[in-house]
């Protein structure tokens, strides 16, 4: 039990304040928007500061000697749950990221959510989200991590289903919670097995350091590791949307856009990859598991990129890009595990991705907020490109996403591809490159559509006519609905004419800045994270391939969407079967829906219910009725005839007497 010093209290404040904010707002001030906002901001700013201070002061902590400060939370006999904080480069960096992004998003939301009836509740949920993510990244024990893991799921449920009057929204929230929960069950089983296998080192609960060291020290057989790793990966793939339980993530954009930004960049989905990074040595202990994970990740990558090509909703495009990037990270980690290199590549991509994905979503948010539609074709029709700041930043983000030098994405993708390259089997790297290609394509599809709208009456509009009507109504509505909110907080008021209130523009700029600079911090970050930065020799072939893929993707997008006289039809349109397959999202949703109805509701639930009504309960009632029936039967003995009764009595008497006589 390490001493409880200022570090502990600092971390406690980081985790505790947002929780406090949540509680206070939920119980007392949820009817007062301004007050709630103030509380929430205060309680997210302080953690931000603390996180950076910690990051600075403890920068020379290493993975080998993490700083652990913990107290016992619950001590049963063999089950011990410590509450504490494990600070090593991984968690320090993540703390900073989460703190920053959630803070930015809170700022951004002032503009975006202003005037919403549930404003207070929204900030409470945001605080809860921040709190759970912060405690997740800094948790010292597996069980504590699992708890915050669940809380992340819960708060994402609350936020995705924030506009719960919309059936689709609450449905999406439920979907997110249940699907991730489905993964978590695997996670939990994995933990239970670990506690089962690691009885002896269970002194301080299931410490993360313990697990890794145990795996390194071969306290666990490889089979055990494989089992637990795969089980835990169920949880991971639930949270960071790996095939086949990625289905919740695209729906998750039903929530307010800032929430999607938070969800897709730093918190929810990051949690999975973060955990995998956390347990990297442990995972690395089982090549089998890693191979499976690599396979799954690759499938995820391809699946989501292909779907992204046909999506029409800007948020959906970004959502699928998230899924694909997550697949990419998982590939990186798995490959690193197989190739025996460090987890840096995947984790680095997570970092950069956090920055530019948040950026992309926030920009999308600005567009949606401004035009009141999600369809980027409609946006471009209504002059999306006139919104200067978001237009620029979104382009930056897109470039980063598709991995163009000198943006952050380029470097991290390079790193991952490098790791993939180092695998003996070159198929993986090939698939990775293909994914990169597709990513670039669908990303720039959006950008080009936004940048180069077709003039009115252009035949390309024909197929969007109905959406346009709907949207133009929606657009007007959009202004109406957001009109009053500008007065609600005056500082946004005068920016109205060029579209973007500063509270919303500011985060964009900051994030864009991150996207620009992060790439150049690769070496120091690697040093910080893994302890040594080996200036790996430039693999020019790979470099060329990667950039080539990206540019190829962009070029194809230009051909299809950008250039004057482009058909505004994806090349995929040439293969309708495939397109339809993609539009139907590979029929994954259908599959799950069918599964749920067929088995859970249709079979088990029905059978159990029937059995309960008829068999179990019926049996009980039958007993009761049989009692009454026998009573009716026995009452026949009591005839009205005196002598019959007497006869009965005499016979019984004689019977008993004779029986007794027989005895002796």
């Amino acid at each position, binding site marked *: 039990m390490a001493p409880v010093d200022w570090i502990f209290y600092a971390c406690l404040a980081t985790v505790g304040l947002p929780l406090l904010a949540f509680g206070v707002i939920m119980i007392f001030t949820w009817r007062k928007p301004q007050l709630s906002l103030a509380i929430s901001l205060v309680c997210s700013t302080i953690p931000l500061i603390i996180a950076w201070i910690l990051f600075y002061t403890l920068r020379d902590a290493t993975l080998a000697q993490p700083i652990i400060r913990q107290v016992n939370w619950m001590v049963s006999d063999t089950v011990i749950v410590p509450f504490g904080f494990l600070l090593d480069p991984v968690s320090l960096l993540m703390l900073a990221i989460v703190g920053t992004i959630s803070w930015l998003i809170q700022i951004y939301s002032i503009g975006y959510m202003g005037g919403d009836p549930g404003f207070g509740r929204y900030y409470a949920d945001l605080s809860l989200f921040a709190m759970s993510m912060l405690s997740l990244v800094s948790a010292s024990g597996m069980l504590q991590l699992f708890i915050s893991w669940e809380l992340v799921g819960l708060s994402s449920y609350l936020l995705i289903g924030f506009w719960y009057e919309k059936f689709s929204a609450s449905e999406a929230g439920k979907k997110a919670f249940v699907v991730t929960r489905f993964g978590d069950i695997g996670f939990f089983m994995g933990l239970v097995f670990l506690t089962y296998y690691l009885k002896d080192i269970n002194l301080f609960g299931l410490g993360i350091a313990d697990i890794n060291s145990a795996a390194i020290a071969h306290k666990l057989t490889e089979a055990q590791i494989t089992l637990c790793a795969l089980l835990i990966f169920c949880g991971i793939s639930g949270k960071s949307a790996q095939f086949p339980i990625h289905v919740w993530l695209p729906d998750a954009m039903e929530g307010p856009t800032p929430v999607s930004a938070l969800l897709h960049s730093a918190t929810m989905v990051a949690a999975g990859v973060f955990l995998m990074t956390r347990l990297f040595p442990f995972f690395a202990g089982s090549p089998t598991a890693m191979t499976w994970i690599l396979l799954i990740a690759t499938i995820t990558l391809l699946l989501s990129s292909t779907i992204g090509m046909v999506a029409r909703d800007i948020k959906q495009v970004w959502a699928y890009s998230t899924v694909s990037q997550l697949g990419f990270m998982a590939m990186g980690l798995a490959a690193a595990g197989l190739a025996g290199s460090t987890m840096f590549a995947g984790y680095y991509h997570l970092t950069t991705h956090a920055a530019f994905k948040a950026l992309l979503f926030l920009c999308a948010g600005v567009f949606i907020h401004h035009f009141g539609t999600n369809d980027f074709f409609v946006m471009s029709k209504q002059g999306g490109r006139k919104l200067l700041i978001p237009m620029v930043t979104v382009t930056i983000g897109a470039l980063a996403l598709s991995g163009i030098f000198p943006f952050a994405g380029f470097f991290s993708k390079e790193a991952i591809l490098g790791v993939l390259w180092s695998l003996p089997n070159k198929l993986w790297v090939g698939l990775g490159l293909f994914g990169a290609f597709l990513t670039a394509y669908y990303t720039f599809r959006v950008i080009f559509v936004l940048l180069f709208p077709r003039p009115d009456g252009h035949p390309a509009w024909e197929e969007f006519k109905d959406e346009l009507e709907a949207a133009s109504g929606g657009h007007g509505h959009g202004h109406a609905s957001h009109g009053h909110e500008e007065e609600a907080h005056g500082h946004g008021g005068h920016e109205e004419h060029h579209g973007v209130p500063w509270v919303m523009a500011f985060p964009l700029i900051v994030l864009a800045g991150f996207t620009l600079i992060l790439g150049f911090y690769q070496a120091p970050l690697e040093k910080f994270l893994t302890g040594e930065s080996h200036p790996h020799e430039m693999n020019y072939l790979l470099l060329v391939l990667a950039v080539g893929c990206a540019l190829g993707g962009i070029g194809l997008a230009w051909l299809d969407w950008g250039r004057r006289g482009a058909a505004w039809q994806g090349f995929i349109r040439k293969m309708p079967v495939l397109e339809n397959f993609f539009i139907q999202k590979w029929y994954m949703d259908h599959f799950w829906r069918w599964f749920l109805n067929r088995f859970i509701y249709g079979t088990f639930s029905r059978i159990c219910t029937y059995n309960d009504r008829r068999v179990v309960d019926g049996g009980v009632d039958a007993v009761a009725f049989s009692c009454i029936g026998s009573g009716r039967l026995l009452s026949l*003995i009591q005839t009205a005839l005196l002598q019959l009764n007497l006869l009965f009595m005499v016979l019984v008497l004689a019977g*008993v007497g004779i029986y007794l006589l027989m005895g002796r």
Partner: protein
Amino acid sequence: MKMLLFGPELYFLGMALVFFGFSLRRQPQVETEYRAALFLSGVGVLVAVFCLCQQGDIFFKAYRVDLFSQIFKAALALGLFLVLMISRDPAQIETRYRAEFYLFLTTCTLGMMMLVSSVELLTIYVSLELSSYSLYILVPLRRGDGIDVEAGIKYLFIGAVSSGFMLFGLSYIFGATHTTYLAEILPRMPALIQSPIGLVGLLLTMAGFFFKLSLFPFHFWAPDVYQGAANQVTTFIATASKAAAVALLLRLAVLGSKYGYSFAQALVFLSIISMTLGNLVAIIQKDFKRMLAYSSIAHAGYVLMGVLTFQEAGYTSAIYYALAYLIMNFTVFMVLSEVASDGRDLKISELAGLYQRSPLLSMSLILGIFALAGVPPSIGFTGKLLLFTSAMNQGYFFLVLIGAVNGTVSLYYYLRVVYAAYFVEPGDLPPIKLSLPTRALNWAMCGLIIFFGVFPDRVLELARAAVKMVL
């Protein structure tokens, strides 16, 4: 001094004579007679309690006065008093027969008093007949359209046949042991273990009391008589005479204790059948009194559980239960006869809305019913549990199991009464006015049921001391 030993009996004899005097009057004076009856019986209770600690043998050892007998005498006197409390105006008894009504109640009580302290077979027989005949007369005394005499005739003949069996049993015991004094029979019983005569004789003798206790297979009179007789008479039959029967069963069972298994076996059989049959048939009854009759059959089975242990504990709990049964059964009947103030036979459904018509009555009803059902905290529960305990101590696991399950079954019909009284709306039935004494009686009964259910110790100690006299 001898007079005091015979005090209660003498007193009630005198009381009987007073009513005899009343009955000779040309013009009946209902009020005076009732006052006299109430007063005299009240004093009778005091006398019986006053003689509680008397001890000694009189009439050449044919008649033993000890704590055992005196307790039951007090109980009987109390029973009579309670019954008279609720017979201010027994609508079904013609006014000109009131004096006889009281007279026969008194003689019946007297007979049972002599019963509980007589230790000689002939005395037992004769006093039993005295009490029975008074009841035979009381039953058809009701003003009715035939069911009264029908009940009377059935009661009479079933009683006659069982007493015929009893007499045969007595004769065999006399033949086998050459004496009629229990004190002398007891030592000679062991010699008879080989031959069945003692055992069978004993069972036949007990038959007479099985009949009084309405135990299977001598129960056939109970439903008809309960329904056919006037409510007050039924009350008396259902309370006092049961207690006397239990007392005598205990006295006689002592003789059989040497026989152990085979004797107990027979009793176990009767007990099980009796409680099961009683409870099951009670479920389908519509008439309240008839239902109570079947419940009394079931309770006879329960009491027998205490008797067949032949142990101090069992006897103690049997006595406790007999007294408890007197109290709780009376409570229910009191409510019954207050609700059916015109003396009609009450259907269970006619209890509808009692909670509105008279909350107090409904409270006593629910307490009494729960006590009968063996629901705590009530004497019924405590008594039943003690009976089970003592039976289990003798290793009668299945007897106890069946008894317990029967308890559940019985709850069904008891709850139906509660249902009618508490849930069904009264409709246009008027509220029930209770006289002050009746209210007091209600409170007293509820108090007794709860108090002795929670603090049974005193009663049990008394019963224990009494049992020591018998064993």
